[in-house]
């Protein structure tokens, strides 16, 4: 039995867990990061890496803006190459006035925060993104300089490396059980190791309920098509009005919602999503879904039709009943959760790290709308 001692154990080396580990280490805590597979092996390494504020829930808008500001200086702070490109527009492409009306509140929310966003005509949006089809009659566009795309795998590795440089430890092993003593957290154990620590942060996404059953996190599978590298340029992040509906669709297991989400990685590959299969925590590429994603992409962006799809990957988002993350104390003293980020984890990670570190140290009062125990009470 390998025994480790720490001030805090962070379970899950995804982008959220490593961001938290970095901030805690920065605050002088002895941190151990526990990971069953490898850094960013889960949802963090299986997504399109979009950085957006438009479309975020009002409770997450402030955190998103805070996070996007942090991204501006993150590469310098972590001394790492993050392939972070900010200053790209986010476009909600609409077909018809009903869809345009549906995205209008997104524009209003951005403006309430003093951020750029506006409704534009079909002709105007095609000027911004010539790859869009004439079927697109209008769009909500946010082009406030903060949004863009990042390599989430690189960000996760960079947070982890920075945490290690500050004295944190990394341990490969799946956390199987929490231990408590007198209503307080005492540690966490795997099959051949245990960590004694008064504080545990559960940040392992859809797997969180395996350790903390009262966390209402359900899997939500997404499928993404990856094209070959191309000289075609996708200008920012292209979403459809249906994407908005899919994000806010009901969470009934067995239900699948689709919406267009197209972005281009720094490598030149174009990533095409998105699907949400509620309750599905598997890795299978469900027949019919890649075809539907491809049809959607070709409808909105006909010029992509000849591109080769070289890879199709799946990722499992962690979804909560109200589709807002669970972040803060839960259960016994010393236990914290940071899970259920669904599709917003990449955007929110730098904020989430600082926020949870603040909550753990007591310097920040947790937001009740995001409280980890809001569904169960304390």
């Amino acid at each position, binding site marked *: 039995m390998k025994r480790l001692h720490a001030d805090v154990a962070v379970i899950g080396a995804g982008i959220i867990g490593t961001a938290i580990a970095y901030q805690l280490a920065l605050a002088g805590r002895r941190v151990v990061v526990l990971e069953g597979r490898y850094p960013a092996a889960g949802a963090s390494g299986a997504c399109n890496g979009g950085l957006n504020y438009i479309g975020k829930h009002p409770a997450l808008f402030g955190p998103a803006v805070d996070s996007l500001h942090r991204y501006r200086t993150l590469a310098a702070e972590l001394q790492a190459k993050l392939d972070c490109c900010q200053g790209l527009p986010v476009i909600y492409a609409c077909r018809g006035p009903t869809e345009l009306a549906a995205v209008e509140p997104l524009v209003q929310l951005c403006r309430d925060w003093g951020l750029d966003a506006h409704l534009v005509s079909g002709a105007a949006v095609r000027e911004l993104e010539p790859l869009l089809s004439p079927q697109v009659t209008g769009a909500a566009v946010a082009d406030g300089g903060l949004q863009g795309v990042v390599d989430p795998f690189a960000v996760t590795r960079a947070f982890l490396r920075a945490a290690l440089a500050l004295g944190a430890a990394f341990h490969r092993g799946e956390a199987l059980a929490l231990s408590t003593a007198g209503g307080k957290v005492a540690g966490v154990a795997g099959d051949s190791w245990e960590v004694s620590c008064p504080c545990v942060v559960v940040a392992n996404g859809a797997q969180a309920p395996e350790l903390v059953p009262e966390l209402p996190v359900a899997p939500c599978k997404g499928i993404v098509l990856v094209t070959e590298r191309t000289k075609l340029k996708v200008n920012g992040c292209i979403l459809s009005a249906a994407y908005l509906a899919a994000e806010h669709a009901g969470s009934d297991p067995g239900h699948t919602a689709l919406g267009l989400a197209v972005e281009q990685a720094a490598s030149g590959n174009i990533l095409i999503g998105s699907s949400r299969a509620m309750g599905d925590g598997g890795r*299978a590429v469900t*027949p019919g879904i890649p075809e539907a994603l491809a049809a959607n992409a070709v409808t909105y962006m006909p010029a992509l039709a000849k591109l080769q799809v070289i890879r199709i990957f799946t990722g499992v988002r962690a979804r909560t009943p109200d589709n807002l993350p669970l972040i803060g104390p839960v259960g016994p003293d010393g236990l914290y959760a940071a899970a259920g980020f669904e599709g917003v984890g990449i955007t929110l990670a730098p904020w989430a790290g600082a926020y949870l570190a603040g909550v753990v140290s007591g310097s920040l009062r947790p937001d009740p709308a995001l409280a980890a125990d809001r569904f169960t009470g304390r």
Partner: protein
Amino acid sequence: MNDVDILVIGAGPAGLAAAAAAGTRASVLVADEHGAPGGQLRKQIHKFFGSSRHFAGKRGFAIAWELEAQARAAGAEFALNTVVYSLQPDLTASLAGPDDTRHVRAQRVILATGASENAVAFPGWTLPGVMTAGAAQTLVNLHRVLPGRRGLIVGSGNVGLVVGFQLAQAGADLAALVEIRPQVGGYSVHAGKLRRTGVPILTSSLLTRAGGAGRVQSAVIARCGADGQPLAATERAFAVDFICLAAGLHPASELARMAGCDCRGDTPIHSPELETTVPGLYVAGDAAGVEEASSAMEEGKLAATHALVSLGRLDKRLGLKDMAACRDVLAQLRGERRLEAGA
């Protein structure tokens, strides 16, 4: 969703033999990414030896015609120029053909996807003109184009020996065939044919690097010891404009792994009747472990017979008899190969 009793993926010797064996008793669809059935047989211009059960005395491409005719006569349908791009554990396959893209739900799937050639990395291996032996064989036998004027073959398995001989016959000038081991790997019949064309077979020798500006222009070989390491001061350079790598094959198990088959290395783990760890999913031919065409045909028949019995389309006693016969023949073929390898 189209339903089919048995989906055969790959129309090489294993797939065609499976379709021929199953077609009269079940609905069979054979999918192949190429425009004509036959797989590697289409490139084999030499006469096969062995037994009449496996078309001895016939050339490979003619065997492909005959197997295709048998499969079609049995009622099997073909989907050619069709890529099976997805296979799920519930045996739903996704097919992209020239006219449509569709999903097929099969009761049984026989994966007869053949083998892929092993890559070898050495300085210069990415230069144009360095290719696998299979690629050279496709060029010369299917497209009737020589890969170059003067070449070098690496590897003395049957693939290297046969392709070397065919290149020599087609007019290529071969500097040598090099083999890292102290003895030739393939059949002595094939080695003899190559030697008689005047191509030296250099054993205990290896290719250390390829050179050239923009394309391969030279190959450097050296003698090596039993450890496979080059011996000092034995290097020799040949001016060549192509190099063929025949460094062995491994089962093409992409679809098997996609469907969730357990594998040992690249080889799907399978029962004696060739069923994998995914129920109803079979492997046959090189996809089940690299051998040669006669074994592939026998395995195709064996897998198809087991599939028919399991579907209730063939009397069990009859099926068991047929399967026992297939397994006897397979054992005999493997015994002969061991003898040949020892000779």
